[in-house]
């Protein structure tokens, strides 16, 4: 039996919370469930953004995902808002 969507999402949140860098590429989440197709992981990541569990972080050319609380901490230092 494969993982349910909620189980995968929980693993993704955990990964985004514990990863050394706050911003993750979508590929970094693939390992949360190696059985899921990348496009499914992408959809779950965008779902988590909708739910407020993750947020987008973009350089303009690449988009990454992060836990909102970890990004706000960073921004306090840099004064970006």
């Amino acid at each position, binding site marked *: 039996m494969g993982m349910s969507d909620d189980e995968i999402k929980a693993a993704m949140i955990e990964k985004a919370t514990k990863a050394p860098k706050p911003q993750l590429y979508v590929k970094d989440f693939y390992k949360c469930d190696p059985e899921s197709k990348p496009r499914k992981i992408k959809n779950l990541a965008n779902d988590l953004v909708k739910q407020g569990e993750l947020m987008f972080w973009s350089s303009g050319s690449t*988009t990454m995902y992060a836990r909102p609380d970890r990004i706000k901490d960073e921004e306090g230092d840099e004064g*970006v808002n």
Partner: protein
Amino acid sequence: MAKHDTPLLDELEKGPWPSFVTDIKRQAEKNPDCWDILGQLELSFRDKITHWKHGGIVGVFGYGGGIVGRYSDVPDRFPGVEHFHTVRVNQPASKYYSTENLRQLMDLWEKHGSGMTNMHGSTGDIVLLGCRTEALEPFFWDLTHEMGQDLGGSGSNLRTPANCLGQSRCEWSCYDTEEACHHLTMHYQDEIHRPAFPYKFKFKFSGCPNDCVAALARSDFAVIGTWRDDIRIDQAAVKEYVAGNIVSGGGAHAGRDWGAFDIQKEVIDLCPTECMWMEGDELKIDNSECTRCMHCINVMPRALRPGAQQGASICVGAKAPILDGAQFATLIIPFIEVSAENEFENVIDVIENIWDWWMEVGKNRERVGETMQRVGLPTFIKVMGLEPIPQHVREPRSNPYVFWAEEEVEGGFDRDVDEFRKRHAA
């Protein structure tokens, strides 16, 4: 009145060509914030370093793209550009505008943003330069609700698709580029508005090999119109061209007297595959050698036309120089039917085949063309489920080894070693 002294930038107003400095000064008379663009750029010229900060998390609710965050790192000195986000607006197919639409868009942008634009970005979008974070949502509301227009793609999204004007005005278009572009734009709304890939991905649609949207050079997935039967020839019109009764090239290059039209010199000798000749006063083409370069058709449009069995070639993997150098797309599928009747189903199949593979195998920030280069074309063609054809080969082989896949070898790689040793003692 200029707010900052900009002696270095002022140099860029000299000379007979258009100057972005003059443009920005003109806009600054209307919107004083724009003086700070010039002030900050002058400072950058002096400091020899940019004062723009990249990146961040600006956007509008529900979207993960369309807005590119930019901030000044010296906002105290240049408050007008403290936030200077770029907004990408999906251009209409073929870039057809009414003046009414453009005026409305500019009014909206002067209300919410700097009024500065870049028409168009290299992806094709209308690029609106310079907006504060708090103005993004109101702008987006007006754009979508009052104008019925939408943002385009940025970041790791599918980027705003673009097309040549195709059958709306051009007799050479081998499929309906506008319909294809519009249909796929609507079909992939999720991929355009939210990140979907390890990096950007672009579609472009040209109706014939003249490739007026430069799909071959600028898109990961280029759909370029072509035909698979023979160039259609009207021999009577050929005679008219030869006699000088029809002006060649549709009257292009007419600014100067180039002398009488010479079909041998201007058409036949310039055919890249040397597949044309005259037999008496009849023009002949060996269509099996024709590479569909469009040259002869461009010169004699009333005598020659693309064939009647029309479709497109699909080329994959163009990109700009950021990592490994620029590259054109590689021909992958020489002919595919492109039709609204089956909702572009066969094109969509090819696209999703590529995506499934590239999302898995591509590295972070690797364009599909770079992934193809890394694994090699033979591997990519296998992934696409295609038989190799001569058109896939760029140059004669320089590697003497032949690698067989197990399924290509009769009996596979397992063999009875004892049986073999009976004949060949160790």
